[in-house]
């Protein structure tokens, strides 16, 4: 027997005569369930999106002499440059400034690429989505895989500058692994959600591109919130600052502010829920919005 796959059109069966509140709840649960399916079906296809992301990484450096080393050079220049220019002014007494900047830049690159590329996640794949019947989230996950690979390569810069630090690694440093897991988990729901918003509202990707450059300066990538004095609220109200904090602070001998952990865990859970519901609700519409 060949593998049997049946499909039937599923006209919405939700408009029967239930009271409105019960109806709304039933719908939410239905969308949530559908959202889980949308995510699970694509996650199960990990060989596909990993290969796509990996090929993207290789192809990006084709015909160059130093290849993927460019990732390291690019981050290295940022880290050395920012250190040379800003160390004196921003953190003269901070012995670990270079490592602080290195971790900040690597994480920032991952987060900002996830946001700007995420907003184009479906739009960029219009041809493939229309040509092959695949779980639709394999394309956002391709972007995720590509950026994870880049982050792993770029992280070598952190190792290179590590000898400049005075940090004696504590067991609490392991918390940064938890922080990193939360960063990645956030990307898992945020890239699909941004792709969904971006395919419906085409202004999204332009808006994010416009904002991200400014956001780089409004996020403590190379400056320290403590150095801002009264303006440290810039870091307090910037969620990306908390995401940086939960990975970077434990590595550099501290433990992140409980507020940062609360914000990051809260956003990860709430955003994940929103993303599940939104993709469950609009999964069928995506192909028509392309």
């Amino acid at each position: 027997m060949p593998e049997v796959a049946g499909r039937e059109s599923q006209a919405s069966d939700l408009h029967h005569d239930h009271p409105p509140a019960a109806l709304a709840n039933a719908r939410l649960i239905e969308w949530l369930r559908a959202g889980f399916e949308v995510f699970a079906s694509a996650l199960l296809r990990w060989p596909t999106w990993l290969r796509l992301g990996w090929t993207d990484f290789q192809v990006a450096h084709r015909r160059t002499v130093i290849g993927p080393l460019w990732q390291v050079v690019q981050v290295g220049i940022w880290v050395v440059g920012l250190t040379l220019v800003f160390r004196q002014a921003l953190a003269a007494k901070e012995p670990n400034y270079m490592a602080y900047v290195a971790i900040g830049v690597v994480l920032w690159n991952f987060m900002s690429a996830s946001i700007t590329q995420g907003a184009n996640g479906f739009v960029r794949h219009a041809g493939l989505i229309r040509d092959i019947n695949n779980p639709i989230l394999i394309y956002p996950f391709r972007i995720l895989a590509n950026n994870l690979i880049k982050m792993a390569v770029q992280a070598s810069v952190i190792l290179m500058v590590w000898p400049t630090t005075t940090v004696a690694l504590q067991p609490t440093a392991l918390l940064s692994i938890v922080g990193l897991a939360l960063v990645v988990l956030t990307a898992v729901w945020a890239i699909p959600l941004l792709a969904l918003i971006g395919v419906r509202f085409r202004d999204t990707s332009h808006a994010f591109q416009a904002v991200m450059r400014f956001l780089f300066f409004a996020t403590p990538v190379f400056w320290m919130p403590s150095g801002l004095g009264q303006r440290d609220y810039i870091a307090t109200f910037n969620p990306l600052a908390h995401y940086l904090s939960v990975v970077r602070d434990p590595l550099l001998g501290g433990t992140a502010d409980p507020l940062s952990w609360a914000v990051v865990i809260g956003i990860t859970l709430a955003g994940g829920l929103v993303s599940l519901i939104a993709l469950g609700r609009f999964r069928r519409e995506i192909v028509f919005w392309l």
Partner: protein
Amino acid sequence: MVVTSFDSDVVLEVRNLRLDFPTPLRLGAKKGGPAAASSDPRLTAAGPGKLRGLDDVSFTARRGDRIGLIGRNGAGKSTLLRTLAGIYPPSAGICRATGRISTLFSSALGLSAEATGYENIHLGATLLGLDRAAIEKALPEIVAFCDLGDFLDLPIRTYSAGMRTRLGFAIATSIRPDILLIDEVFGTGDRHFRAKAKQRIEEVMAKANVLMLASHSDGVIRGMCTKAIWLEQGKLMAFGPVDEVLEQYNQDPSTDVEASAEAS
């Protein structure tokens, strides 16, 4: 889900299939009011903001059927293929498919221009759902069929359109689908490739499958198909033996090139 059917030969069953596209265009709301609404039934039938892509399409494909899809531009050929493939969710009606579906809707097949032919075989095959072991197994066959030799080591930006089609076709047929859906990709292939493609389709069909092929070339349709579906403005006009349907289609005044040229 297992589809039970009284007739186990039925591979594809389509009943009263309707597909409405949402469009940003709101004809009634445009200046001039509703009176200025389009006279094209595809734009009015489904109400404002909708475009009727398929209208009440019904047919049944049985094991071994090779069906050509014909019709003018915008008749709904690609829409029907995409709905059958599960890419467009039907707005109403039933669309049942039994077995593994492979699609070849563009010779690009997600291919990456900077990647080599071999890399693209892996990319294309994994996009079609093959796992690593299956790809390794299918590789020699794909290499032999596409006949690209050492070109497979070059990035495919160096390929001609026909060479890309050959590669795409080789990958799409390598997964041994039960249902193969092809949309107008033979235009770029040379005669040699078409002969090979036909032979390949015969091989795939030997396993008792269904082929649906949209094309504007009577020659391609006649050469590859035994039956044909004629679509017009989203409606199914005829379904039957390929020669009969082609004759009907070519005799229809609205599709007669000379007649419509005189009329305008």
